[in-house]
C-alpha cells in the first residue's frame, strides 16, 4: 500500500471514525443523564408551582346573632353548639346576597353552583374565627374564603369547560359565573401562605390541604436525629479512628458499619415497627419513633465521613500534643476534634438531608395516618414531609397531585439549603494540610 503521510488510508479512517463514535457515546451518555435530571426537575416544578397560588373569594358576611348566638349571652359553651353546617349556610346566603347586590347575572348557574363556589373548609374557618372572638357576632365582616378545588383548578388550567360538563362537582355555568365574579373583583388568585401552615385536609378538599403538620413533624424528627446521631456518631468515629486496637471486636464493628450503610431503608422501618412500636410500646406515628429509626439509619452514613475527617488531620498535630504531655483523650478532644469539626459537620448535614427525604421506613411506623392537630411534643401523632407527598398521591381528587408536587418543591428547597450550607462550610473552613 503506497500512500502519502498526509492522506489517511482506509484503515486509519475507520479507526478514527471509531474513535469519534466512542467519544460520541460518552457525550451522549452525559447528555442523557443531565437531560433526565432537567426533565425530572421541570416536570416536578411545573406541576407543583401552582400549589403556591390559590383562588380566594372575598365578600361581606353578616354574622347574624339569631343564627350564631340565640341566647345573646356570647357564652362560648352555648355558641360552640352551632355547627359548621349553620356557618356554611350563612356563607352561601352571604355570597348570594353579594351577587344580587352587585347585579351579577347568574347565567343559568343553579343555587347549588353558587353554594359550591366556596370550600367547605371555609365554614370551619369562619366558625373558629367567631369562637375565638365572640364580639364579631352581629357585625358584618369582610371574609376571605377559599374557593373549591374545581374553581381553583379552572384558573390553573386543570379544569376546562369540557371536563366541567362531565364533572358532577362543577358545571360550565359555575365556571362562567366564577369568571364574572373575577371581573367584579370578588374572586381572585393570589399567594397561598396557608399551603405552608395549614394542616392536611380531607379527601374532598384539596384546596384546604397544607403542609403545616408535616413541616413540624419533619422538624421534630430532624431534631431527634441531630441530638442523637451527632454525639453517638462522633463518639463511635473517635473510638474507631483514634483508639480502637486491631482485634476481632473492632473488625466486627467495622464490618457492621459498612454493611448497615447499604441495608435498604425499608428494613429499618421493619426494625422500628418490631422493636420500638411492638416491643417497647412507643406510640405509632410519633416523631420520636420516626427520629429513632432515622437515627439508626443515618448513623453509619455519618460515621463514614466523620472518620474520613478525623483521618485527614495530620499525625503531627497528635504528636505535638502528646509531646507536650497531653493524654490521648486530651489530644483528641482539644486538638484533633476541633480541627476535624468542619468536615464532621459537613457529613452531618448531608446525613440529615438524606434522613429528611427518607420515606419508606416512615410508612411502616404509621406516619401515613391522617393527622389534623399540631403535635405538642415528640410523642404526639404527626406527619412528615415526604410521607405527606406519598399520602397525597394516593388521594382521588386531581387537586392533590398539584399539592404533592408543591410539597416536593418545599422538600427540595430544604435540601438545597442544607447542601449549600454544607458546601459553604467545606469551602470556608476546610484546611488542606
Amino acid at each position, binding site marked *: 500500500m503506497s500512500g502519502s503521510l498526509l492522506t489517511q488510508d482506509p484503515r486509519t479512517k475507520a479507526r478514527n471514525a*471509531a*474513535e469519534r463514535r*466512542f*467519544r460520541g*457515546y*460518552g*457525550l451522549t*451518555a*452525559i447528555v442523557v*443523564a*443531565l437531560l*433526565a*435530571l432537567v*426533565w*425530572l426537575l421541570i*416536570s*416536578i416544578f411545573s406541576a407543583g408551582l401552582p400549589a403556591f397560588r390559590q383562588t380566594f373569594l372575598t365578600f361581606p358576611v353578616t354574622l347574624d346573632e339569631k343564627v350564631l348566638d340565640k341566647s345573646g349571652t356570647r357564652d362560648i359553651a352555648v355558641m360552640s353548639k352551632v355547627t359548621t353546617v349553620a356557618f356554611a349556610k350563612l356563607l352561601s346566603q352571604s355570597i348570594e346576597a353579594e351577587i344580587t347586590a352587585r347585579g351579577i347575572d347568574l347565567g343559568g348557574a343553579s343555587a347549588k353552583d353558587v353554594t359550591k363556589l366556596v370550600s367547605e373548609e371555609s365554614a370551619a374557618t369562619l366558625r373558629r374565627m367567631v369562637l375565638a372572638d365572640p364580639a364579631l357576632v352581629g357585625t358584618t365582616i369582610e371574609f376571605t374564603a377559599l374557593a373549591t378545588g374545581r374553581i381553583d383548578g379552572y384558573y390553573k388550567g386543570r379544569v376546562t369547560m369540557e371536563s366541567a360538563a362531565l364533572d358532577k362537582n362543577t358545571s360550565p355555568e359555575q365556571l362562567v359565573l366564577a369568571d364574572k365574579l373575577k371581573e367584579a373583583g370578588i374572586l381572585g388568585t393570589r399567594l397561598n401562605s396557608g399551603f405552608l401552615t395549614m394542616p392536611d385536609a380531607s379527601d374532598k378538599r384539596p384546596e384546604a390541604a397544607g403542609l403545616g403538620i408535616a413541616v413540624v413533624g419533619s422538624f421534630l424528627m430532624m431534631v431527634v436525629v441531630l441530638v442523637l446521631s451527632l454525639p*453517638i456518631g462522633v463518639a*463511635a468515629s473517635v*473510638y474507631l479512628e483514634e*483508639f*480502637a486496637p486491631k482485634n476481632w471486636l*473492632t473488625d466486627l*464493628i467495622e464490618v457492621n*458499619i459498612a454493611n*448497615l450503610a*447499604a*441495608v*435498604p*431503608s*425499608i*428494613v*429499618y422501618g*421493619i*426494625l422500628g*415497627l*418490631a422493636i420500638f412500636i*411492638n*416491643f*417497647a*410500646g412507643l406510640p405509632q406515628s410519633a416523631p420520636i419513633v420516626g427520629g429513632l429509626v432515622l437515627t*439508626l439509619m443515618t*448513623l*453509619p452514613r455519618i460515621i463514614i465521613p466523620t472518620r474520613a475527617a478525623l483521618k485527614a488531620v495530620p499525625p503531627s498535630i497528635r504528636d505535638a500534643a502528646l509531646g507536650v504531655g497531653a*493524654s*490521648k483523650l486530651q489530644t483528641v478532644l482539644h486538638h484533633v476534634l476541633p480541627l476535624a469539626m468542619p468536615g464532621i459537620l459537613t457529613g452531618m448535614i448531608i446525613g440529615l438531608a438524606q434522613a*429528611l*427525604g427518607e420515606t*419508606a421506613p416512615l*410508612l*411502616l411506623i404509621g406516619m*401515613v395516618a391522617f393527622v389534623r392537630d399540631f403535635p405538642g411534643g415528640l410523642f404526639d401523632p404527626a406527619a412528615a414531609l*415526604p410521607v405527606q*407527598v*406519598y399520602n397525597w*398521591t394516593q388521594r382521588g381528587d386531581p387537586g392533590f397531585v398539584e399539592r404533592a*408536587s408543591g410539597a*416536593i418543591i418545599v*422538600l427540595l428547597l430544604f*435540601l438545597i439549603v442544607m447542601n449549600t450550607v454544607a458546601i459553604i462550610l467545606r469551602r470556608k473552613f476546610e484546611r488542606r494540610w
Partner: protein
Amino acid sequence: MSIGLLLLIILGLGLAGWLVGRQRAVASVAGDIRKLHSLPGYYGHTVFLMTTVPAFLLMIAWTLAQPVVIESRIADMIATSDIPEGSSRGLVMADVRRIADGLDAVVARGEGDATLAAVGVEGADIRARLAEAGVAVGGEVKPSVLAAALEYRALSGTALTALAAVALILALAGLGWSISRIQGEYRARNATEAFVMWLLIGCSLIAVLTTVGIIASLVFETAHFFRLYPAADFFFSATWNPKFGGGSSLGIWPLVWGTLYVSAISLVVAVPVGLMSAIYLAEYASKRTRSWVKPAIEILAGIPTIVYGLFALITVGPLLRDWFAQPLGLGSSSSSVMTAGLVMGIMVIPFVSSLSDDIINAVPQSLRDGSLGLGATSSETVRQVVLPAALPGIVGAVLLAASRAIGETMIVVMGAGAAAKLSLNPFEAMTTVTVKIVSQLTGDTEFASPETLVAFALGLTLFTLTLGLNILALYIVRKYREQYE
C-alpha cells in the same frame, strides 16, 4: 413525676455534683491546685459522669422493658372466653392498651379518679365515656378486659414512680460514691478518661446492636410466620393472593420476579449511561467540564426517592402508556415494570458512574501510556487496556447498583403497581418484594395473622439478598484494588 422532670432533676444533681467535686478537690489541698493529681475540672467531670450516666442508661433500659413486663403480668387476667373467635391474646392486649390510654384521656379531661373507680364497677358506659374523650374502642368492652386495662394503668403508674425512685437512688449513690473518692492524690483524670473510653466503646457498639436488632426482629417474626404458614408454600408456590379472612396463598415467586424484572430494566438503563459517562469524564473531559458535570450527575443521587416516585407517577407512567403501551396494544396501565425500571435507572446512574469513575482513575497511567505509545487510539486504549484492567471493580459497582435497585421502595410503590403477576410484558403492572412489605404492614398492624407476618419473611429475604450482593461487591472491589497498590 414525668420523665422530662426526672431527666432535669438528674441533670441538676450532676451539675451540683460537678461543683461539689471540684470544690472538694480544691479544698483537700487547701487551694494549692499544684498538689492535685489532675486539673480541678476533672474532679468535677468524674462526679458528673458517675451521677448522670448510669441513671440515664437505667431509664432507657427501663422504658424499653416496662411494657413487656407489665403485659406478661396482666396477660392472665383476660379470661379465655373473652377472646373473640379468630382473635388472639395479642389483639386483646392492644385493646387493653388502647382503653388504658383512653382512661388517661378521660382523667385528663378533669373527671378525676373517683369516676374511674365507678367505671371499674359498672363497665357498661365506658365506651361512651371513652368516645367523649376522643378515643374510639371497637366492639363491646368485656369486664375482664376492662379490669386488665385498669390494672395496666395502675401498674404503669406504679412503674413510673418506681423508675423515678430507682433512678434517683442510683444517681445519688453515684454522686455520693464518686465524691467520697475525692482527695488530693485521687487520679481523677484517669478515672474520667477510662469512663469516657467505655462510653465511646458503647457508642460504637450501637452499630452492632442495630444489626442484631434487625436480624433478631426479622428472624423471630419470620419463625413466627412459618409456624402459621408452611415454609414450602412460601418458597415454592407461584401465586400471591393474600386474603384477610384466611386461606391466602403467599408464594414469593411473583414478587421476586417483579423485583428482578424492575431491577434488570433499571440496570439496562443505568449501566451503559453510567459507565460511558464515567469513561468520558475520566478519559476525555477537560478539567473544567469534569468539575461541573460530575457534581451535576451526583445531584441525581441526592434527590429523595419519593421525588422519583412522583416523577414516575405523574410524568413517565402516563407518557409510556400513551406513546408505547396503548399504541402497541401491550396494556393500558400507567404503572408498569417499564415505568418503575426506567425511573429507577435514572436514580441508579450516579451510583454506577461515580464508582466506575473512581475505579477507572485507579488504573495506573503507565498502562495507558504503554498502549498509546504502541499507536492505539484513545478509544482502543480504553476498550482494550483500561476496561479489562478495571473490569472487576466495574462489576463490583454494578452489583452495588443492583443491590440498591432491589432494595428501593418508593419508586416501585408509586410506579410499578400492586398486582402480583408472573408475566414477561414490561408494560404490565407488577409488584415487588418491597411494595408488598409496605402494603402488608401499613395501617393497623397486629402481629397475629400470616398476612401481616409474611412481611417479615419478605424483609428477611430482601435483607439476605442485598447483604449478599454487597458483600460480594465489596469483596470484588477490594481484591481488585490490592493489585495495583
